[in-house]
């Protein structure tokens, strides 16, 4: 039988692996996690450069931007579209779901690998294929898709399309290939998600009850469930959009009885849960880190999980708040406005609980904790500004203005960037066996935080003044050319540049620490969860002897425990 079928061979730490089967077509969840994360970081950098490019165009219209040249409307739209696409589907998803999940789930539930290692490898290589298709889509005649990341038809169904050109020629256009790439990416994450859920349900260490499962794994699995149940309509809608492009069908063409609004519903039924798909793992990371560095239990852990479950469900019935002004039925809009405001309740609870976790602790602000604090503070800003957009009556005015841009950058950057960085600095010792440099890490944090606020906060005000999105040159709009708004554009651009530049520190830090950082023991942070029982880096097969679990993950400073202030899950 093939070698991967044989659990004994697969899991024995000593069996010989060829270079290919160890690093390229690896079945080991840790290597697959690294593959996903590195791919994600590379694409995040590309997307970030796109953002810097069009921010420079906004601040200094008509300037000759390095590597891109002078932008026109088409190129600008293309950069905006693909910035969002890359950041969501090729940076946030692989890092927050696939990379994080693949690394922590088997380690934290004390098992040797994923339930279906082959499926896991397949998932990564499908994802890689999707990334290749994405890059191809930039090189097509007429350039990449320039329809906004929401791909609203009829524009997206007709751009760069010649109805008489035939299937192949229309398939090899930016828009079609982008849709194809997104569909492939969904397939990859779906396979990975099945793997996560089965692993968590079936392969937990002996004695680990559901409430002993660390919150981060709850969050990742909830995110996966949301993804699995919401992605279907968009896959259907994307196929229909692709057919509109290559087969000249009329699903979204009003002249033929099709309906553009249909696509918006298909898109946002996925598109809104998608936000929670990346948000929940970020919250999970933070709720791992805060107990570790405050040395006290997570406040109301059980209720945090319950609230997360309820928010994951409510997230499925708020999608149309992205369409308040899209001409949907006003009565439905009122319903969706109410559900949207309701969803603030579970997240208010979780934020309060995280804050309450600080009180009476022994807080040690190491780099991961610093990033976690950044997450909590800045996500607070993003969270409260969500109310403005959730209220239909006000969204009539704010929709598609820079207020929305500022809002979702204040949510997504803390979630994906700060949360992800917290996780990176927290689990880097486990995955490489070496500590990261504290000083560089803190510098990285402060520069990024400065960049974020310089970039996003002023945009609230220009947005409130009615500055609308996706305009590549405001020269035509006299009310938008007053001095203070121009200054805001400059500030935002400088902030974006600072964020991009600050990441060089991260690269230096990773390379330095991975090669010559100080050795990390098994448990550098004195944490409870099971991954710290394994060696760092964990060998192939993770644990010498399968650990068994005796208590919840956050038993810090438990008076019953004499001696140390932490009580690993696997100790009697």
């Amino acid at each position, binding site marked *: 039988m093939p070698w991967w079928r044989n659990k004994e061979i697969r899991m024995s730490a000593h069996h010989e692996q060829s270079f290919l089967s160890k690093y390229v077509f690896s079945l080991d969840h840790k290597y697959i996690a690294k593959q996903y994360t590195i791919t994600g970081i590379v694409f995040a950098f590309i997307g970030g450069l796109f953002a810097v490019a069009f921010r420079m165009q906004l601040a200094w219209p008509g300037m000759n931007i390095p590597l891109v040249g002078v932008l026109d409307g088409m190129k600008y739209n293309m950069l905006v579209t693909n910035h969002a696409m890359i950041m969501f589907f090729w940076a946030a998803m692989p890092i927050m779901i696939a990379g994080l999940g693949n690394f922590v789930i088997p380690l934290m539930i004390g098992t040797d690998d994923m339930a279906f290692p082959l499926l896991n490898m397949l998932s990564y290589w499908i994802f890689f294929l999707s990334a290749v298709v994405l890059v191809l889509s930039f090189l097509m005649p007429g350039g990449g898709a320039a329809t906004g990341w929401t791909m609203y038809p009829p524009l997206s169904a007709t751009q760069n399309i010649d109805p008489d050109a035939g299937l192949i020629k229309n398939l090899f256009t930016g828009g079609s290939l982008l849709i194809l790439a997104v569909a492939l990416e969904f397939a990859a994450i779906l396979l990975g998600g099945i793997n996560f859920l089965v692993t968590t349900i079936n392969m937990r260490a002996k004695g680990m009850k559901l409430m002993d499962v660390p919150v981060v794994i709850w969050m990742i699995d909830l995110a996966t469930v949301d993804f699995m149940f919401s992605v279907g309509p968009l896959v259907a809608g994307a196929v229909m959009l692709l057919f509109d492009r290559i087969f000249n069908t009329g699903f979204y063409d009003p002249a033929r009885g099709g309906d553009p609004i249909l696509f918006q519903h298909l898109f946002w039924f996925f598109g809104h849960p998608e936000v929670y798909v990346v948000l929940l793992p970020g919250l999970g990371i933070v709720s791992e880190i805060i107990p570790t560095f405050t040395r006290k239990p997570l406040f109301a852990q059980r209720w945090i999980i319950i609230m997360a479950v309820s928010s994951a469900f409510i997230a499925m019935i708020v999608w149309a708040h992205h369409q308040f002004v899209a001409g949907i039925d006003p009565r439905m809009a009122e319903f969706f406005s109410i559900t949207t405001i309701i969803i603030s309740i579970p997240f208010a609870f979780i934020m309060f609980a995280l804050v309450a976790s600080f009180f009476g602790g022994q807080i040690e602000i190491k780099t991961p904790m610093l990033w976690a604090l950044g997450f909590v503070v800045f996500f607070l800003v993003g969270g409260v500004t969500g109310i403005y957009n959730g209220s239909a009556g006000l969204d009539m005015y704010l929709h598609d203005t820079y207020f929305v841009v500022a809002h979702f950058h204040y949510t997504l950057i803390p979630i994906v960037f700060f949360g992800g960085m917290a996780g990176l600095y927290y689990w880097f010792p486990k995955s490489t066996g070496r500590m990261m440099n504290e000083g560089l890490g803190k510098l990285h944090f402060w520069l990024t935080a400065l960049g974020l606020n310089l970039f996003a906060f002023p945009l609230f005000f220009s947005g*409130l003044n009615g500055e609308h999105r*996706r305009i590549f*040159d405001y020269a035509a709009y006299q009310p938008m050319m007053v001095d203070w708004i121009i200054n805001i554009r400059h500030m935002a651009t400088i902030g974006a540049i600072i964020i991009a530049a600050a990441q060089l520190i991260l690269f230096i830090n990773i390379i330095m620490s991975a090669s010559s950082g100080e050795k990390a023991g098994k448990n550098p942070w004195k944490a409870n969860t099971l991954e710290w029982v394994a060696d760092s880096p964990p060998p192939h097969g993770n644990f010498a002897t399968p650990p068994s679990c005796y208590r919840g993950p956050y038993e810090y400073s438990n008076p019953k425990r004499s001696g140390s202030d932490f009580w690993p899950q696997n100790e009697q």
Partner: protein
Amino acid sequence: MSLLPEAYSSVAPEIGELFNLIFVLTTVWGLITAAALFYGLFTSLKKQGGKAKYITGEDWAQSKFIWIPLVLVVLCDFWIDVKTAHVWSMVEIVSEQPQGDYDIKIVGRQFYWEFVYPGPDGKLFTEDDVSVADGNDGELVIPVGKVVKLHLTSADVLHSFFVRQFGFKNDVIPGRIITRWVQATKEGRIELTCAEICGPNHGTMRNWVKIVSQEEFDKFVKNLNSGEVAMVAQ
């Protein structure tokens, strides 16, 4: 000073009130949470030989500190919901819209706005409608103080009819006619923009709304019907 632009329509002040309500509530809550966070952070930093308290937050004595604020948050949400429903239904729900004094059809096109006024018969959606497109004196002219029904539609892709000072926007969608209403409260010349990405020249798709007195408006309509404004072919 208000963060929102000057109000030119009867609904804009209502939207401004809604904004102020949400602004106050969210700012207060955000500040309270942040203050609590930093207080908790700085009062419980690591001390030599200190020991953290073992607080699980499972029993009421501890968890009331977040349950009670949560209930208050729910009340605030309810407040916002009520106010939102009021503003929203006033602007959007057709059955609650006031009677219109004048009808104008607005067609979004790549990349300009076309305004269709009723012809001599004074009714819209008839043969003799007069179409005024961008280019030749193509501004949207409406009378001050009158309820004007805007019938929004598109000829090609999605656009979005957005006048900042009116306080609302609405996508214009091919295949549908969406009716909104506006009652201008003062005369002036304000900007009309497209707020939904509609192609490469989306950035240049703009026009003006000219709010004029009733007399001027009547004159304008007379010119239209006498054909002094060039008709634009379909």
